[in-house]
């Protein structure tokens, strides 16, 4: 076993609370499949047979009991639950399962939807005997209008600055705009080793990492690091260029760990590898006569996708976008065989109808997803919308650009545009709702009504 897969599925989805209020993020339906299915499927496609899934009790319970969230994977899932309220970061979670980690790990986030060729990332990891290799992608513009938002949302988020070398693979620099008050500061010695540095700002981190086992051990020793993306990765990137080989003074725990490990299993391999590197005339750079990698033993690499789908479903906008694109990722009939669809209705090819749905006459469904056990009555128009499970839509409704959460009931003749209707909500008949949130069943109706 070369790599162990670890799936991080304990996140609360804090950036899309409206959706995750009733459904935990890993189980949100995307294209009528739970979100967690996508990374699992990605791993299964490349041949993993076992995955460690770090998740919460709630999710575990729902996976085992709820028939609607059928995972439909053949891999062996090793579910590890962590406490929800402990506020554990991804690095904390990795530390939590340190005992289970026997080899290098591939860490994936549960909200990743991608068609990336995973072997690209792993190959970088293998070829350079890297400490870390990760996946990034060019950022996508979200085209769809997001419910509850008037106009385009300004990209107030701060950019990540990612510096790669001339080949575009070696990761040299990483910082968030927020931390760069004094501008981008780069040591000259780095520039001397890598005289061409590309600084890219329009990238999304896919949160997919290959990490050496020693890094996991390092985490176990360093309890202060709690997030992989926020702390561990920047630390590793920075440590690449600190003096590591000659001076014992520099606290380079990772290497101490490497040495520790060497004595256990892989010492012979490491030595051999080292010898090969020494004897080989191969070099990763040109222009000077120093050793390959300039003698550095900590190396970080990144694979940047130029094209293809790569989304992290962590905002509402991303969720809608993912739903629109999800059908392209798998070949399944758009209309589930168990759905009862009337002959006299119009269903676009870009729509998905879930299992045991009932779609009545004179209904038109375009560019939309209809969840499991949803009932759609006569003369309903659904465009650009996501309807989750168990929703009932009464006669003559018009739903456009909206998200309707599970078990909601839309009253007769309602006109809903760019709205988010929360779980088990009831929309009164003939209501006309525009650009509003309808959620939280406690406050029954905080909608903003406009009567004609």
């Amino acid at each position, binding site marked *: 076993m070369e790599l162990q897969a670890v799936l991080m599925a304990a996140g609360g989805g804090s950036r899309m609370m409206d959706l995750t209020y009733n459904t935990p993020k890993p189980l949100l339906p995307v294209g009528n499949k739970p979100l967690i299915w996508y990374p699992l499927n990605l791993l299964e496609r490349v041949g993993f047979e076992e995955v460690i899934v770090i998740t919460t009790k709630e999710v575990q319970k729902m996976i085992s009991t709820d028939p609607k969230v059928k995972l439909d994977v053949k891999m062996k899932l090793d579910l590890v639950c962590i406490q929800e309220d402990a506020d554990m970061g991804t690095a904390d979670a990795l530390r939590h399962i340190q005992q289970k980690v026997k080899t290098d790990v591939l860490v994936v986030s549960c909200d990743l939807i991608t068609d990336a060729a995973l072997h690209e990332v792993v190959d970088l990891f293998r070829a350079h005997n890297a400490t870390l290799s990760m996946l990034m992608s060019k950022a996508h513009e979200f085209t769809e209008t997001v419910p509850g938002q008037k106009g385009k949302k300004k990209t107030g988020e701060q*950019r990540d*600055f990612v*510096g790669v070398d001339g080949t575009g693979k070696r990761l040299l620099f990483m910082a968030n*705009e927020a931390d*760069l*008050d*004094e*501008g*981008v*500061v*780069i*040591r*000259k*010695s780095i*520039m*001397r*080793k890598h*005289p*061409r*540095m*590309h*600084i*890219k*700002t*329009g990238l999304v981190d896919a949160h997919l990492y290959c990490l050496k086992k020693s890094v996991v051990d390092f985490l176990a020793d360093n309890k202060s690091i709690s997030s992989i993306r926020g702390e561990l990765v920047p630390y590793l990137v920075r440590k690449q*260029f*600190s*003096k590591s080989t*000659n*001076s014992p*003074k*520099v606290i380079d725990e990772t290497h101490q760990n490497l040495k520790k490990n060497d004595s256990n299993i892989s010492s012979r391999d490491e030595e051999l590898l080292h010898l090969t590197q020494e004897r080989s005339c191969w070099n990763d750079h*040109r*222009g*000077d006569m120093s050793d390959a990698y*300039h003698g550095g033993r900590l190396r970080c690499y990144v694979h940047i996708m130029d094209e293809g789908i790569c989304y992290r479903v962590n905002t509402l906008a991303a969720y809608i976008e993912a739903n629109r694109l999800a059908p392209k990722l798998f070949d399944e009939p758009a209309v589930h065989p168990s759905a009862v669809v009337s002959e006299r209705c119009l269903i676009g090819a870009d729509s998905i109808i879930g299992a045991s749905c009932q779609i009545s006459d004179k209904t038109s469904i375009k560019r939309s997803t209809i969840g499991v056990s949803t009932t759609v009555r006569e003369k309903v128009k659904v465009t650009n919308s996501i309807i989750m499970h168990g929703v009932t839509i009464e006669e003559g409704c018009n739903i456009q650009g909206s998200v309707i959460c599970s078990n909601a009931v839309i009253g007769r003749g309602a006109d809903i545009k760019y709205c988010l209707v929360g779980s088990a909500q009831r929309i009164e008949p003939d209501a006309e709702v525009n650009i509003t949130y309808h959620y939280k069943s406690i406050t029954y109706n905080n909608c903003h009504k406009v009567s004609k």
Partner: protein
Amino acid sequence: MSSRGGKQKKGNVTSEQEEEEQPLQAVLVADSFNRRFFPISKDQPRALLPLGNVAMIDYTLEFLTSTGVQETFVFCCWMSNKIKDHLLKSKWCRPTSPNVVHIITSDLYRSLGDVLRDVDAKNLVRNDFILVYGDVVSNIDVSQALQEHRHRRKVDKNISVMTMVFKESSPGHKTRCEEDDVIVAMDSKSKRVLHYQKTQGLKKLQFPMNIFQHGSDEFEIRHDLLDCHISICSPQVAELFTDNFDYQTRNDFVRGILVNEEILGNQIHLYVTQDGYGARVSNLQMYDSVSLDMVRRWVYPLTPEANFTDQQGQGCTHSRHNVYRGAEVSLGHGSQMEENVLIGRDTSIGANCHISNSVIGNNCTIGDNVVLDRAHMWNNVHVSSNVEIHQSVVCDGAVVKEAVRLNKQCVLAYNVVIGPNLSLPEGTVVSMHHPEEEEEDDDDEFLSDDQEVGHSKDKTRQKAFNPAEVGPEGKGYIWKASMNDTEDEELAQCLWGLVLNPDPESDSESEASEESQDRSRSVSPEIDDVNAFQLEVLGTLQRGLEENIVCDNLVLEINSLKYAYNITLKEVMQILTRVVLEYPFQQQGTQLTTLQYTGSLLPLLKTWSPVFKNYIKRAQDHLDCLSAVEELFLEQDTHQTAMVKVLMKMYQLEILEEEAILKWFSTGATNDKSRQLRKNQGVRLGQICVWGKPSQNVKGYQFGHCGSLILLLQKETTLLIFSDGVQRKQTPCSQCHKKESCGMV
């Protein structure tokens, strides 16, 4: 706005047509405006120095001509007559020359800025022009860069004012010199320069955030560029120099444009060539590498045998291993020319010589058994037998006598005679000009005098040559770059320039400390101020000693520093005390013995006692000063025995009062260590005070080497007080049992 746009458009149309017709112009600045090549350039302007036996300006003109320039303005200042003569004789001024050369001389040029302001005033350029120095050697075809530049100007409505030409070469490349190393941040797509900085002496490179806010999401930071000092400029460049009279160099200009990009809307772009060659001979280091590159044919088609200057007798033959021989070269028996050797016409070489990587000029004679490696000999040089020359420059008319050895980076300027039997140490520069003569030249603006004022003075005031420096038959003075001219930074640098030594070790060593520094800084930023203040005080005192500054002025300086760093009076006193007491360690290292320490400290205390007195006035001040003394000696626990002497001295100099010492001694023991200190020193301190009070009893005092205090009592008796408090009369020191060594009287 619209009318203006229309006007511009109209102008563009006409200029487009004109562009086709108008000849490409170039501005060649045949002056470096610095003294890097002194003393060589005292006799010959830099542009005329031979490189591969051809004057450097000829390479520049050849480069311009081959790239399609039809009209060149040559601006000269220093020794303009010589340059003019040279050019008038050269092929550039023949009627058949495709490149019309105009020579413009003025004594008033002080910088590149002056030249370009003059270009603007005289309205010389009408279109995009190429700006180069007279010491650029290049074979780059800039027509593509020119095309890109014109295209950008057409598309962006004259926003781009300059395109700089760079050659790609990785760090550590030998034609890159540390001084000229640049780092460039650029927009990957538009090739726009966002940040341009010289990296000499920098450890960290800082890029302001605003350069990353230009909408593009891909930037490139490049450290693999060699600045060729070739720029394609729009006519606006000259205007901009006129508008901004503080722009002196191209560096000023580039930085000014980049900083004011948002205000003025001007941009600078770059063009990177991969296979061309371009370098500026900015110091001897570069001269050495460019000369060798030339011989190794990197600047093809500008090769030595091409004789592109088209002068009679300059031709030479090219044989393998890049050995070039001019006409009438004679080579003695057994002499070897290994590789990369260029020998000018009428040069004769003796037997059993060993020559590699060298250029030898015309009419030279070289004796037997001579070893030349990376030697650059100009014309009419005479080298006797058994000479060894390594990586050195020997100028016209120099004579090297028997058995002389020139180590690396030596320079023999014009007409110098060296030897016999001498070995010049590395980096020696010998010139017929006396170093002091230069200072005299300073008075009459050196840049403007092409009258060679020096010569007449030289004759009137001929000084004797030092045979130890230049050998028994030698003629010449060792040249030392004068350091007194602080405004001219270039002077302080040596002729050869700094060697690019890739030592990443030293860089990364600082990493650990850097991080720890970062940490401490983030915790308490004010400590930094205090530290900085302490350093400044130290510097002030040091200077005071060296330059014999009056204590009153020192006080003034420290006072102004106090305000600059916002330091309280109490801290001033503590820091001052600390700095003074640590001064011997600072100067002589920490391995001082206690005796040495007190020996060097006590005179210092005396010198600076007015400074102390100025700050220590109130009773509290005395106590603060004492606590600072205590603190220091607690740290330097090996030197604790010196404390009593220091206190004694301060008491004697009336810096500290007796009451204060007593008070300090009786109170204030805050921890074990200081209690211990008091216990050790206390006895003696007590005794000082005892001695101080009934002073009618005591004539004098002395210290024994084992730390005992010897009091000379009135009645011709001696009282010995030991550190354990034991008092003995007229007894030798119990610890060493030697009367003399205790310094007893």
